[in-house]
Structure formats: C-alpha cells, structure tokens
C-alpha cells in the first residue's frame, strides 16, 4: 500500500504535529531574555565562551580558506538537502529496506515519547541494566537518558564534553562542545569531586584531564553490552550509517557491544553513498576547523564477526514533519549540526547556550526549536538574534537563518494578533522585512541604506519590537547587543582580522583569556 494515497491527505491538512510537551529538551523554563540575563551576569562564563569561540573561528577560517571550491561544496550540500527533503518518503523507505536487508531492524517513532519507549524496551529485552552512549543530539532532544533512568537503566555518556556535563549535573550549551561554558579549572574540579577514581594530583592540563576520562571509561567500554548512538548520515541507497567523532568513544560504542541502537532524525537521510563526499568535506572544516575529524565510522546493518550482532535503527519525527510543512522554515531541517553558526553569533557568544532553553542553541536553535515545538512554546527564540547574517555566511549548507528568523517573528506576531483580535502593525513590519530579506539584492540594499534595525524597529532602534511581554524583557536587557551600527561585512572585517580576542563591537569588559602562545602566532593580540 502506498502511504501517500490516504484520503485525509487531500485539501487542507490539519495542524502539523509538533514535539509533545513534557518530554525531552526542546523547551526552557524561562524565556530567552530572562535566561540570557543570568548568563550576562556571569563574567567567567562570558570569558570562557569568548575564548572558545574566537579559537574555533580562527581554525575554521584557516581550513575553509584552503578549499578553492568551498562555495561549490556549500551549494552542492544545499541542493542535496533540498532534493532529499522533497523526496523524503522515498529515501526513508529505501533506507529502511536496505538496513533490513543487511540484518538491521528499523523502528519508526512519531515523537519523543514513542522513541523513548522503543529504546527502553529494546534495552530491557537484552537484560542489560546499563548502556554506553555516543554523543547524539537526537537522544538529547528526546530526553532519552531521563527515560532510561526512569526505567532503572543507567546511561553513561562517553564523549568527554558530555561526560563533563553529566558529572557536573549540568546541561549542554553547545552542539559540538556541550561543555564549552566550562574552563579547564572548573572541569578539573568536577572530575575531582565526581569521578571517584581520579588521582588527587590531577592537574588542569587538558591532556591530563583527557587521560582521566580515558581511565574512567575504559572498563565501561570493554564490558558494555548495549550502546546507543545517533547518526550524522544514513545512506538510503545502501543502508549505511555514519558517525563522525574525534575521541574514539564513538568507535568503542559502535564496535564493542553486542547490541547497537541508533536514533536518527528522519532528516538525516542522504540519497547515495557518493553524497558523503560533499558532507564529509563540509562538516569537519565547519565544526572543529579540521581538514578531517579523527574518526568516522560507517556500518551497514550487521557484519558477521565484526561489531554488534544486533542493530536497531529508530527513525524519529518529533516535530520534523511540522517543520517540513512550512515552506519558509523547512530549510532548518537541512542542518548538519556543525555548530559553525553558534561560533560566529554575537548573541550566542555573550548569552551562551543555556539561555536558549533547548538542546539546539544559537542561530540554528532559534529557528529549529520553535518549529519543532510550535512557535508558542519558544516564542522568544526568533528574537534572539541581531540578524547580522554571520550565521548564513558560515553555514556549510547555506541555510538562510536570518530570513527564517524574520519569517518566524512574523508568524508569531500574526498568531498573537489573531489571539488578541487586534490589528498588528508589527506583523506588517515583519512581512515587509521578510520581503526585503527574501532576495539578496533587496537585502544588501536594505543593509546599506537603512540598516535593518531601522527598517524593523521603531522604539530605541532595537530590532525585534514585539507586542508581547517578551519585548519588554528583551529591550530591558541592557547587555543584549544593539543592531550593528555598520554592515556585518564591515564589522566582521574590523573585528575578526586578528586571530585572538575577537569581540562584538561595543563590548566592554575584560579580554578573553588567551593562552601563552605555543605556535608563535600571537601577532595582533598584544593590544
């Protein structure tokens, strides 16, 4: 039976099904401006973030500059994603068939609750009381660890940063480096007080801290019966899954246990194996600023005598189809989770990841979380941006984040106007902005002539005037950056030329801590 022929499909579809409330980690307890205020008051946090994001920006810029075909790679990545999203049912069914043919078992989960139930039951069926985990955004999104814990199953995060977060009873604050808000001294303290088996003479040298993590997890890896992972890519043509990582904890989890359970968002499918040549060039350079990440594992179903002999793939919706139903917002699904947009975002750099309240922080979080949950549950996130455009320029698959932000703001103001049955001049302003930003030429003109801040804002030149309490909180948060006083390109050129200590304009306060330079490249950092 073809799933696309149901009579309910014709005519206006009903309200798209978003991620359920009360489960998972897509919603914060506070609005962005409220949460950001805590972060802005924390000088240590801002120093840690400033230092880390400046480091990664410089590394990324260097390896991107090595590729004369970077723009062609980005365009190929974008088109591959657009094509895939337009043919998603075909590719998912093909992936399912290929995985099944190679001895894997495919499960489908409508939402976080269902995915957690499926995984919990699979673990229980093995009799294991604990599992090892590879860092995975999808399982963080659905709150799998909490669900397993409720069922009496201990889930051990094995990625160093996730381990730091887990031991610190903390929340992740970055897609790639979830413990980016912690510096080495804080990490040392967490290890000393929480690991139990650590040498009291532990120093805060990153190599020593990594060594402590190696010792701490070694036995777990060698004895684990069940592992849980995410997937960066799933190849429809062959049923091959790919996990990109650095530390080898991924390889441990994907190779040594008897049972492997992989939770993959439906948008992670790619048509053919050859397409990996695009994404495996874009992803490492954009995310860790390396030509290639240390380890990438690929597996197809079950291979007799090599690796897990039971493999389950859980395909997750959890609001993704709702995103797909918005022509202006659906490109958010094209994200390959590289985190480049976080590292270049002046708002992220100051507010930090926790302020976004979701496992997806930064610019991508600002467009993805509200669409996965429905705008009303994350209404303040589309305003968590200066619309400076740095994220769009950095994105390896060319997601036009600023335009989607403006679209979501318009959607929010419209929804608000509908609810309150009052005319909403703001929704008109947002629509005008969406029109301007929908075309590169109009956008550049607007930047030059009026600056978008003036285009959008009327009170105090602040971008994002909204007729809701969010606005008062937002504009009341003094430290949130004003709109750029110059075009982004000018600002970027002025601020980011030196390798070290890049700060958004107007930022007072201490310079980020810079390490004593080991490679003799601290030119320009002496100011």
């Amino acid at each position, binding site marked *: 039976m073809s799933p696309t022929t149901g009579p309910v499909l014709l005519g206006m579809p009903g309200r798209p099904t978003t991620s359920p409330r009360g489960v998972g980690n897509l919603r914060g307890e506070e609005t962005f401006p409220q949460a950001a205020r805590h972060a802005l008051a924390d000088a240590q946090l801002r120093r840690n973030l400033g230092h880390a994001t400046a480091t990664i920006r410089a590394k990324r810029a260097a390896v991107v500059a090595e590729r004369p075909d970077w723009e062609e790679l980005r365009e190929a990545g974008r088109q591959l994603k657009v094509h895939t999203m337009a043919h998603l049912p075909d590719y*998912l069914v093909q992936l399912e068939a290929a995985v099944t043919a190679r001895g894997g078992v495919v499960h489908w989960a409508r939402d976080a609750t269902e995915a957690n139930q499926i995984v919990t039951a699979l673990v229980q069926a093995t009799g294991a009381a604990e599992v090892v985990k590879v860092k995975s955004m999808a399982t963080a999104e659905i709150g799998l660890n909490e669900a397993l814990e409720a069922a009496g199953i201990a889930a051990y995060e094995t990625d160093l940063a996730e381990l730091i977060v887990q031991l610190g009873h903390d929340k992740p604050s970055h897609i790639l480096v979830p413990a980016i808000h912690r510096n080495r001294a804080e990490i040392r303290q967490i290890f000393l007080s929480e690991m139990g088996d650590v040498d009291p003479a532990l120093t805060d040298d990153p190599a020593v801290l990594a060594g402590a993590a190696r010792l701490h997890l070694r036995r777990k890896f060698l004895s684990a019966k069940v592992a849980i992972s995410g997937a960066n890519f799933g190849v429809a043509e062959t049923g091959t899954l790919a996990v990109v990582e650095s530390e080898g904890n991924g390889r441990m989890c994907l190779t040594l246990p008897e049972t492997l359970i992989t939770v993959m968002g439906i948008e992670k499918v790619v048509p053919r194996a050859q397409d990996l040549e695009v994404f495996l060039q874009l992803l490492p350079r954009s995310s860790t600023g390396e030509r290639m990440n240390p380890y990438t594992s690929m597996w197809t179903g079950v291979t007799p005598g090599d690796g897990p002999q039971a493999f389950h793939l859980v395909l997750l919706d959890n609001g993704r189809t709702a995103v797909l139903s918005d022509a202006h917002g659906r490109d958010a699904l094209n994200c390959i989770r590289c985190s480049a947009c976080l590292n270049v975002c002046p708002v992220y750099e100051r507010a930090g990841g926790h302020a976004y309240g979701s496992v997806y922080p930064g610019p991508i979080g600002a467009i993805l979380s509200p669409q996965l949950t429905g705008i009303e549950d994350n209404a303040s996130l589309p305003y968590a941006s200066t619309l400076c455009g740095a994220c769009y320029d950095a994105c390896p698959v060319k997601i036009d984040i600023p335009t989607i932000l403006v679209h979501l703001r318009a959607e929010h103001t419209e929804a608000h106007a509908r609810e309150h049955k009052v005319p909403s001049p703001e929704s008109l302003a947002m629509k005008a902005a969406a029109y301007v930003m929908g075309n590169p030429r109009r956008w550049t003109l607007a930047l030059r002539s009026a600056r978008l801040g003036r285009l959008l804002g009327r009170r105090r030149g602040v971008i994002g005037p909204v007729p809701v309490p969010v606005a008062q909180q937002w504009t009341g948060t003094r430290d949130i950056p004003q709109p750029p006083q110059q075009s982004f390109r000018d600002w970027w050129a002025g601020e980011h030329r030196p390798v070290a200590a890049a700060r958004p304009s107007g930022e007072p306060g201490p310079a980020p801590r810079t390490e004593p330079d080991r490679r003799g490249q601290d030119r320009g950092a002496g100011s």
Partner: protein
Amino acid sequence: MSTARDEILRRIAAAHTAAPPPPLAYADIERGYLTGGEATGEALAEVLVDRLRDYKALVRRVERTQLPAAVAAALTARGVARLVVPDGLPPAWLAETTVDVLRDGEGHRLGVDDLDGADGVLTGCAVAMAETGTLVLDASPDQGRRALTLVPDYHLCVVLPESVCDDVPAGLARLDVTRPLTWVSGPSATSDIELERVEGVHGPRTLEVIVVHDTQD
C-alpha cells in the same frame, strides 16, 4: 490501526501538499566542487605525510624493499613486546621483527582483554586520502575487524603507494561503503576542553604510519 511508519510517511506527504517543495531532480544537483587533482605519486605522498604530521601522527617513509626493516624499527622504538595482527597481514611485513605476535582471525578471535593487554597493532589500509590525511580501514584481510585497531594504544599502519589517492571524492569512489569502514585522521583527539585540540583519548593515542614508495628511476 495506523502504524508510526504509516503516520510519519503520511505526515510528510501532507507537508509536501501544504508546502510543495521546489522540483530538483537528483541528476540536476550541481556538483561544481573539485574531484581529484592532477597530483600523483610522490607529490601526493608528500601531501599525505604533511597532513599526517599536522595531526601529530608519527611518519616513516621507506622504499618497498625496506618495509620489513621499518616495521621492526618502529616496533623497537615504541617498545612493543606483544603485537596484534590480523590473519591476512602479508607475512613479509613481519620478517625482521621478533616481537610476540597475537593473530586474530576466523575461528581464533582475540578477546577484548587480549587486545587491551597488547602493546600495539599492525595493519595495512584500504585507501589513504592525501588532501585530508585520512586512512580508511575497510576490514580487508590485512586490516581485520574493527576492534583490532581500536583497543590497543598504538596503531602502526602501512600505506602502500597503490592505496594513496588525492582527496575525499577520489577515496570514496574506491570504497565499498557496505563494508565496516573506519576513517582515521590522526590519533584520537578531543577539542572538548576550551576547544584546544589534545591528542589521545579513547582510541589509540599514538598513530604511526609507514608511507611506502617505490624506487624512483
């Protein structure tokens, strides 16, 4: 009763009805990026060596006839006493070393504790991508199953000239992705602490590569 599978596929179809996606056939996707350069032979090997060193891998370059001596020298320098090798490793590679060899293969699998107790592992590789310094293991007989190159703390990998290719597209084209693949670019590393790269976490903390070349005229 509707299954989750049917419902998700139905939701996607409904989304496509509500917001028709732009038509873009697979064949029409623009692939203007570079695939394979002009460099060959020695020039490629030089790029590979440069990239490997950048990742803090140890590198030896030898002529093919010198390979057994280079293997022996690397194992001695590292102080390896117990070496894991896959069954299909060319026996000649071990001709000049006297270390204890633990063989893994069909019917005589080493346990994880054997692997953990060994000082290192010696393998070949399927493909080496020069531009990114990436060695790909595909579980061929000279590489063995994935656990062999994962648990020991030292991995000595031999790259023959015929496995060296230019870049990711060229390398991927040579691989069968349905085999279990491990792409290795340097020793295990982390950037999780202040985004500073540190070599050596859970995978082998030392990667040593012997890049073999044929005698030049």
